[in-house]
């Protein structure tokens, strides 16, 4: 069993949990993910690693309630435990392959949206520890939906954007990116985008215009997470790739996002994926 050492409610439907998983913590790297099961009836759910502490033997995960399985996760309290917590899975972020010299010269931009902010954190933190302070654009619908901003500010230059203008730049992350580059004179050599698929699609289109090499972290459907099932297959540059073993990060300019979004909704019609407490989103 993998017990929950601490739990924070980051917003009404987003929680952060620090989970005791010494073997995973020992090998975890920024960009990787874990697969968890709450109980014997649960799905295997992939979650990006948001922080790790090798000494303490813990992994931090952040989960947003979107259906039955994520709701089940978010109902767990401090002192409860996951039945299964396997990982780290997937390949670490490409940034880890850069040599010191190249790293120090690089101007790195992260674009984070919604619950994607937390998984950006370990990468930004890793860079900070290696003497690089990246820029991070964080987008949300309004100021109450921001998570991980304080943590991020300790390791990065943070730029906020809200759809309603309640904090930071009034508009989408792509608008803020444009402003930073065209008006404020920022230059970026690399970009990593993590967030909802639709946001990654448009943010990647924007970085393509500026010819900034871009990686995106895909949250495809998975069953085993070790390369066995192929549920997570995605088309990158015309080739079928498995997100679980070849990703989760891929070249954002080559990913077929429309297919990826469609495949993510494969089981949307299944009554099993819906929570009993789910409200219709029409009047949200």
């Amino acid at each position, binding site marked *: 069993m993998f017990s929950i050492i601490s739990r924070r409610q980051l917003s009404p439907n987003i929680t952060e949990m620090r989970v005791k998983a010494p073997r995973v913590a020992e090998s975890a790297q920024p960009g990787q993910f874990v697969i968890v099961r709450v109980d014997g009836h649960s799905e295997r759910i992939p979650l990006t690693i948001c922080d790790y502490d090798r000494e303490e033997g813990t992994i931090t995960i952040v989960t947003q309630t979107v259906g039955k399985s994520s709701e089940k996760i978010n109902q767990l309290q401090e002192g409860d435990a996951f039945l*299964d917590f396997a990982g*780290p899975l997937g390949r670490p972020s490409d940034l880890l392959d850069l040599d010191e010299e190249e790293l120090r010269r690089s101007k790195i931009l992260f674009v984070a949206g919604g619950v994607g902010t937390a998984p950006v954190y370990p990468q930004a933190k890793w860079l900070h520890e290696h003497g690089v302070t990246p820029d991070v654009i964080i987008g949300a619908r309004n100021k109450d939906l921001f998570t991980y901003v304080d943590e991020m500010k300790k390791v990065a230059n943070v730029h906020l954007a809200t759809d309603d203008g309640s904090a930071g730049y009034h508009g989408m992350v792509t608008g803020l990116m444009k402003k930073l580059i065209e008006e404020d004179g920022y230059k970026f050599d690399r970009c990593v985008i993590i967030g909802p698929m639709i946001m990654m699609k448009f943010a990647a289109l924007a970085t393509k215009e500026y010819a900034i090499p871009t990686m995106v972290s895909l949250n495809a459907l998975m069953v085993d997470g070790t390369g066995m099932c192929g549920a997570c297959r995605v088309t990158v540059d015309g080739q079928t790739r498995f997100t679980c073993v070849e990703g989760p990060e891929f070249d954002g300019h080559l990913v077929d996002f429309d297919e990826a979004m469609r*495949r993510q909704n494969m089981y949307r019609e299944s009554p*099993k994926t819906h929570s009993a407490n789910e409200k219709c989103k029409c009047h949200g």
Partner: protein
Amino acid sequence: MANRIPRTPVREQDPLVRAGNFEEVCLGYNREEAELEASRCLNCKIARCREKCPVHIDIPGFIARVAAGDVAGATAIIGADSSLPSVCGRVCPQESQCEGACVLGIKSEPVSIGKLERYVGDWSISHPEEQTVVLPEPNGKKVAVVGSGPAGLACASDLARMGYAVKIFEALHEVGGVLVYGIPEFRLPKERIVAKEVEAVKNLGVEIETDVIIGRTMTIDDLLDREGYDAVFIGSGAGLPRFMGIEGENLNGVFSANEFLTRANLMHAYDEEYDTPIFAGRRAVIVGGGNVAMDAVRTARRLGAEAVIVYRRSEAELPARVEEVHHARQEGIVFRMLTNPVRVLGDEKGNVTGIECVEMELGEPDESGRRSPIVKEGSEFTIDCDVVIMALGTSPNPLIKSTTGGLDTNRRGCIVADEEGRTTRPGVFAGGDAVTGAATVILAMGAGRKAAKAIDEYLKEK
């Protein structure tokens, strides 16, 4: 000498009933039936059945014990060569192994060796008190086993019997490998059989840790250097699914057989009580002709779909066990032989609406000795369906290869190992599908046992 007793039929669930449930199809022999069937064996001096058995079980020997009512004696005889009789009795391709060689089969029907093996295996599971194992003193050496499928379980259990401290590392949350995620409940019951076989291995003192992915959570080098294991056995199987590479293969509704079966078997998706979803559609087309294709098509049928097999060769070349093909037909599975898909068709939302196929004819034999299929020009036609399942075979997972130095693999990605399981890396042994590519439970089990012997020799010399 003619044997006048006909082959004893085995009781089965009614096809119409079982096509709607996941309970085991074959009910097995009772004592009376087993003894009657065992009495048919001619006890040949030169036992061809034994020669054809991949692990050379003394088949006439154990059958003679069954005929005499001494099942404990039969258990001991099988146990000398096989550690999974209740599994192999159910899933071995007997018609091309032991039963295919049975002399009785020349003029009438072979002895039902598989069903007798199953009878003995099931008896031993329900009579654990009959198997008192005296374990030797621990010899102070530790061996790590990667993967808890047939190869890993067999290797671990033999090593434990020799006095080694053995720990199995399993990537998934359940123990059993392909026995749990691949083979369906209706062919191999999980609680009643697989869990009991695993329990027996644990009772030998073998430790099992789930949720550990070797190649990610730890590497082979970590096991040897950091965790202090004296040797490692890799039985990680062949888990990577193949696809055809045709148009439309990433449409919603196209699955690998691995995904479909893992959802059903490992995740119990067919059961309302479990959270994992599964989609079998109205009509499901399964591409392939092996046991995995049969398992997938029969699972789809049980989930309420009209289920169709599409196979590019003819019925004679179907690689699946004869019994599975027979059961599938009884359950109403449609077989489209000499048919090969060319593309998957979808609607504007990206959901599967059909599969376009071509008709095939058989040409000259290829390197496998089977006549190779050739496309009939202009024979394109479409089968309407909303699910397509690719059951085209699997390859070994590259995770271990890519994270272990000095471990050679061949061009198919299989770990290079000799007959005894020695890899190119001293102290590292391998067996089962990770070495051979997708094969059978009994070969994997046999490879695990051979490797246990080789590990013992290696550690004694070390």
